[in-house]
């Protein structure tokens, strides 16, 4: 291996397409382990690459790359505790582990260069690391199927540290360029560890409205009350895990992730502004990036954990795909309108169920105010597609849509007779489940009006069973 100091001084940032490979290996005891390898090469912001990079022959197989690298601890600070998570990746799950990608390299934080980061993930168990901190560099993708290759670097802050920073008055600077920069790079003379570190998540985390209408209590407020009650009782039993959601979009994502066998954590969130797109849910990946509605479907397709036969059986032919689009559009417009009406325009639900679940964590009066503001936004959005909000018409259309879905489903387990649920199943299931689990209003004034949508669904036995079945299989298990 030759040390080959490079002196590139380009600044660019590219991400290559992920290359997914499945490798089957026969173990000693005869069992076959299939391993999945996703390789991405991410080259980020190379300010300078004055590092010794080991060149690798393409077919070299080596267990670990270790390189001595001089650079600083700063960036690493937030990732220190991730090392412990690079272990025990379960076979078959598509969890992604990688060398850390740090967002937002601080320009004045003298960062070390070599930002060519090769991310590999494999589903084998061993993790490398004498890593106390990170950055990796390798020139090309090189990984062995049985180990993650993290080139780890120990930090030695010596005078040779390649600190670089932009320096307005004297132009962009590099420690090597000007002796003044060398002098400045010595400051601060002494560094102490960062006060705040956030542990890296292991699994993708979905920030969504959770849990469902009834399970675990419902809103975050009741969740907290439940938590405090649990603490008082000093439970030794497990706290009820958070399952499902009362919001259609959130439940749709959860169902879709479950169908594609992607393991995830749920983080209850109730503020849509926290999401990059302004709408919940969104997905926070262990590597730091956030997936919103736009990239969700594509991401799931890239990372699903299904076997080849499953995938083959689940694939829809072109007719079925077209029908799936039609039915999902039907559901998302007609049934969605009826559901919005039920939640926001039927008085008992509006003042009770919806307010408690969407705004229950706020002060009571603030919750009411936000409730009204939300309702006016919903009115505005509904009036974009129709001239007036007519209850009869909305429910009539919803009834027709539900009937169409029921006829299409027939007596199959999933739509189109597949054995593996598809995205259409996720969409339809989320609507049905939210409608069916809405708390019933026993109120003389209401006289059953607010339960009309649920009744419409219950009329069709197969939809009811279908929803229950999916819930039992994917969520309640």
């Amino acid at each position, binding site marked *: 291996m030759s040390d080959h100091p490079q002196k590139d001084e380009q600044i660019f940032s590219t991400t290559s397409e992920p290359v997914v490979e499945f490798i089957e290996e026969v173990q000693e005891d005869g069992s076959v382990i299939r391993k999945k390898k996703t390789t991405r090469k991410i080259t980020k912001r190379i300010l300078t690459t004055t590092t010794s990079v080991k060149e690798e022959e393409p077919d070299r197989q080596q267990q670990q790359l270790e390189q001595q690298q001089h650079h600083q601890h700063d960036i690493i600070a937030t990732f220190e505790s991730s090392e412990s998570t690079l272990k025990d990746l379960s076979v078959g799950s598509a969890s992604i582990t990688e060398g850390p990608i740090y967002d937002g390299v601080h320009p004045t934080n003298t960062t070390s260069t070599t930002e060519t980061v090769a991310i590999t993930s494999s589903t084998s168990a061993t993790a490398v690391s004498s890593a106390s901190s990170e950055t990796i560099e390798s020139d090309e993708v090189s990984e062995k199927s049985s180990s993650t290759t993290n080139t780890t670097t120990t930090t030695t802050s010596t005078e040779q540290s390649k600190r670089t920073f932009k320096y307005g008055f004297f132009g962009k600077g590099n420690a090597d360029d000007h002796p003044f920069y060398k002098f*400045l790079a010595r400051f*601060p003379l002494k560094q102490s560890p960062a006060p705040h570190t956030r542990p890296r998540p292991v699994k993708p985390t979905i920030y969504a409205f959770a849990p469902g209408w009834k399970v675990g209590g419902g809103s975050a407020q009741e969740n907290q009350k439940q938590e405090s009650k649990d603490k008082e009782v000093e439970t030794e039993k497990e706290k009820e895990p958070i399952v499902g959601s009362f919001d259609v979009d959130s439940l749709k994502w959860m169902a879709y992730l479950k169908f594609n066998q992607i393991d995830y954590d749920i983080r209850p969130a109730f503020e849509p502004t926290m999401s990059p797109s302004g709408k919940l849910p969104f997905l926070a990946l262990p590597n730091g990036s956030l997936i919103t509605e736009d990239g969700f479907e594509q991401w799931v397709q890239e990372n699903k954990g299904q076997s080849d036969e499953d995938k083959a059986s689940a694939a829809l032919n072109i007719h079925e795909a077209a029908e799936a689009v039609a039915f999902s559009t039907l559901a998302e417009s007609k049934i969605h309108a009826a559901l919005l009406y039920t939640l926001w325009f039927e008085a008992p639900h509006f003042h009770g169920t919806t307010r408690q679940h969407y705004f229950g964590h706020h*002060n009571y009066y603030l919750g009411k105010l936000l409730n009204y503001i939300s309702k006016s936004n919903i009115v505005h959005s509904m009036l974009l597609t129709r001239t007036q909000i007519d209850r009869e018409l909305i429910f009539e259309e919803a009834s027709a849509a539900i009937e169409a879905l029921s006829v299409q489903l027939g007596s199959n387990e999933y739509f189109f007779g597949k054995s593996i649920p598809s995205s259409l199943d996720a969409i339809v299931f989320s609507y049905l489940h939210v409608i069916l689990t809405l708390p019933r209003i026993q109120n003389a004034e209401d006289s059953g009006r607010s339960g009309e949508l649920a009744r419409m669904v219950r009329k069709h036995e197969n939809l009811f069973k279908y929803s229950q079945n999916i819930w039992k299989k994917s969520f309640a298990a």
Partner: protein
Amino acid sequence: MATRQPTEEELAAHRKRQQEFEEAAFKIQSLVENIRHDPMKLRKITLHGVGKTRESFLRRILEPAFQARSLHEVIGLSRQAVRRMERFGIFEDIKIQLDSPRDSWLRDRKDLVDLGIWVKEGSRIQIRTGTEAGNAEASMYGALTVKNVFGGAETLSTSMAFGTRTSSAFQFALATPVLADPDKNLSINLYSQTRNNTQWSSYEEDLKGGALKYSTLSPFGYHELAYEGQWREVCRPSEKATLTIREQCGHSLKSALTHMWVHDMRDEPLLPSTGHYVRVIQEYAGLGGDVNHIRQEIEAQVARSNNAGYILSATVKSGYLHSLNGKPSKISDRFFLGGPMSVRGFKSNGLGPREGEDSLGGDAYMSAGVSLMTPFPGLSNYDSFKAHFFANAGTLVSVQPGQSATKTIDDLTKAPSVSIGTGIIYRHPQVRIELNFALPLMAAKSDAVSRGWQLGLGISFL
């Protein structure tokens, strides 16, 4: 025009006139001296030129003058009453005249005096627009002020400001003196602001609220007691906001009692050369609302100088946020530290817990600064320019609810961020401008350091 030398006669006449003046003044003075302790009372006060000001209000101001029992006291108390009237700022011009009573049946009474006051009320409505610079921010504002709204020197003002840090602010305030005392003031404020924190924490904050404030002077200094209700929303996280900031997004209500005490004995606030200054702010939030905490902030400054223009000043600032209900603090209440006006050598709000490039704020901080200001070489004639040598240190930590006090103190003292540097200060009449070259000596790994040149513009510096 050439002045010719005064002739001998003119000089003699001048001297004679002067002597006559002196004799007359001496005569009046001795006359007054003789009778100043004679019993004398104020019988009637007549105000001329008052149109909108309330009679009850003026009566309260002038009431103490009736306590006078001798000429000496009459003159003294009348002057005091007029001073009080001037301090309200609603009169443009005040003239007084003491005279014997006009009424015929009182002509013989030597012990009664009438006071006549001629006032000119100032204009009521004032509209101002302009720009102003404050601590690390600049803004344009427009304000409408109505003085003496209800006749009792109440002030009503509405203002609108757009700035760099506070991107928009609307305020409506009604202030009134209490019991006709210009030192005691009661005011109601209603405001709606948007603060732009994207530069250091990647979020914006909407604030709407109201406050009821009572301020007064006591022998200890200036006190202000306030009740504040605030609805704040952390919203619009920027693209690069980290997850911890995103999790802070949302609404919260704060309902708090605040007390502020200021004791300012400096010669001037922008670049003090003598004196000391203490400010203590306490806030208890918990009367309803989402947050329940006690927030305390202390600032103290002392300055000494010698006649050659050398000034040594030292400042200490400290704050503590203690959560009372066991929940972690919200970012809207936390402290931030660092910057050209706080610990120099670090970016604005660059100290303390940070995630990525976002500053998360902390619950407890300590900071101290020592500055030596000397006359600037070459500009020693200009007192506004000073060379500046400083050393600053600070720590900002977060406190978990239920943490022991010793751990907090330990966290605060174990790893301070220290910087030294030098620079030049210019004292503009409204602001202080500093250009410093700062070097951080000790820092935490996550601190956002700013080596080298740093410009600071503001009013209160560490």
